[in-house]
């Protein structure tokens, strides 16, 4: 059976045609086993976690913690190093608060030119609060984070470096391990954050090998539910850092004068967490680790190479990011010029009329688009359910749309 068959949403029609979903970088569709898991949890084991001693509470807690273990295994970490959040954005915002005390006036926080707004604004605002400076590392000619520029800009003042593993616009797989090594060699106390939102579903991530301090990502970009994110942090660091928010479920004792915290990760998860979705996330990881899905993940490279080659044959199309598809992951963003630059939203709306879902706009990366000299781009992105047929159909529809819009 084709994997596509396991995604009920892909059976629906859009404007009279069967949906072709090419917007997985925004959010992925969910397989039946994940949908079933959600219903199963609410119909069998729903209860609050960590403070309820009845049977349901024990079951819910066990399932919740099981997902933590699955996530840890998935990225080669320990369960105590996995903090559940609302999503990647939330993880970075929490980190920017947790790391605030590491940054003194005059210090520097470094990000790259290709960051999503979610890995830019939290640091920009931290710098504002602490009177620190936000330093931007440029790109090299292969659209990777420029290692030489990074090295040149690093100093004893650099307290945090946060950058993206896979760019959600360029599709670049950044040489994360080498970049981290460069930072460590220069300044071993710099805290290193990696935004793995676009990498986690497509690459094998090993946080131990990467040697980052923190790695963040979202469940909904790995065939799981929305509303769940992960903040991986090295145990030694999590133990030292203060929580960014407070409430029930995170304390060892509370008086009116002072409170003390549980060990990580529980110190960082105050209040009732998104229990059901965390549990369901576990089943999304099970899905990703199935042999046939693993195989489909490996074949994504082939699909991207095919899509890149076919798309670049169309007149007027300029593809953003690296030409070498072995350095790409998950997505292809492009612009179309037919006399003038066709607006990505017009292209996306045109494609939608053929039942094809793509993303258009600045993709929450305004500074990057400005750097590339464009306002917006159109993006096709892939999941294990996509086929070469999907790409062919999409490109036929793209040709028709271009013909309609052309002056």
């Amino acid at each position, binding site marked *: 059976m084709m994997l596509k*068959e*396991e995604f*009920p*949403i892909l*059976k*629906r*029609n*859009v*404007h*009279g045609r069967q949906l072709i979903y090419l917007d997985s970088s925004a959010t992925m569709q969910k397989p*039946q086993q994940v*949908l*079933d898991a959600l*219903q199963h949890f609410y119909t069998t084991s729903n209860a609050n976690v960590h403070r309820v001693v009845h049977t349901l509470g024990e079951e819910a807690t066990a399932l919740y913690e099981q997902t933590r273990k699955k996530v840890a295994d998935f990225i080669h970490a320990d369960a105590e190093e996995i903090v559940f959040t609302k999503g990647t954005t939330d993880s970075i915002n929490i980190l920017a608060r947790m790391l605030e005390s590491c940054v003194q006036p005059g210090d520097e926080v470094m990000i790259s030119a290709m960051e999503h707004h979610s890995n830019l604004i939290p640091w920009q605002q931290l710098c504002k609060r602490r009177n620190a400076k936000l330093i931007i590392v440029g790109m090299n000619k292969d659209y990777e984070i420029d290692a030489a520029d990074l090295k040149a800009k690093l100093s004893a003042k650099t307290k945090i470096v946060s950058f993206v593993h896979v760019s959600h616009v360029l599709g670049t797989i950044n040489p994360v391990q080498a970049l981290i090594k460069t930072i460590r060699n220069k300044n071993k106390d710099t805290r290193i954050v990696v935004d793995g939102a676009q990498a986690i579903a497509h690459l094998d991530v090993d946080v131990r090998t990467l040697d980052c301090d923190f790695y963040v990502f979202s469940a909904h970009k790995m065939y799981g539910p929305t509303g769940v994110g992960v903040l991986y942090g090295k145990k030694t660091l999590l133990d030292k850092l203060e929580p960014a928010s407070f409430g029930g479920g995170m304390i060892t004792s509370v008086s009116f004068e002072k409170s003390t915290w549980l060990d990580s990760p529980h110190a960082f998860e105050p209040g009732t967490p998104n229990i059901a979705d965390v549990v369901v996330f576990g089943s999304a990881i099970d899905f990703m680790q199935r042999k046939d899905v693993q195989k489909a993940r490996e074949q994504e490279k082939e699909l991207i190479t095919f899509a890149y080659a076919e798309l670049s044959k169309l007149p007027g199309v300029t593809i953003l990011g690296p030409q070498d598809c072995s350095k790409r992951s998950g997505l292809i963003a492009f612009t179309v010029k037919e006399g003038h630059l066709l*607006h*990505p*939203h*017009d292209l996306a*709306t*045109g494609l939608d*009329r053929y*039942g094809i879902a793509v993303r*258009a*706009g*600045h993709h929450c990366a*305004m500074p990057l*688009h400005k750097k590339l000299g464009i*306002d*917006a781009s159109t993006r096709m992105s892939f999941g294990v359910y996509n086929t070469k047929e999907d790409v062919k159909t999409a490109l036929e529809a793209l040709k028709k749309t271009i013909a*309609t*819009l052309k*002056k």
Partner: protein
Amino acid sequence: MKTEMKTETIKEQIGKESIDPNQIGEGPLTEEQQIYKENILDHYRYPHHKGTLSNATLMHTEHNPLCGDVITMHLMIKNNQITDVKFDGHGCTISQASASMLTDKLQGMITVDVKKITRDEIMEMIGVPLGPVRSRCALLALRTVMKGLENLQ
């Protein structure tokens, strides 16, 4: 097949009122539903009142951060009446066509009447059904005029 059975069960449990995922958007597009109708494409390709007014009474720019649409409205206002209007900017078909259509409407209007123009009137003018996301493109020109008039006071 197993998966379809599961969907059926979920549907049954949600109830008969729920949306049937297989029925959404069923059937081919009617003439009415076509988004890039000639009317819109004509305004986009050959916009009315495109340009600037060097001595405008009112000049205001608004952005649609969603897709990077930019509209600048230039109005010449004499005795509360719009005597001349131009628009400038760039962006998607919908944003530019709706600006062009709006300038036709604005020409000669009394400013108090301009302030009464509703969202629905603009959507009717565009004449194609738009979802909440693309509606923002359609409404950018009106928003620009409204904000500009507010600033004028």
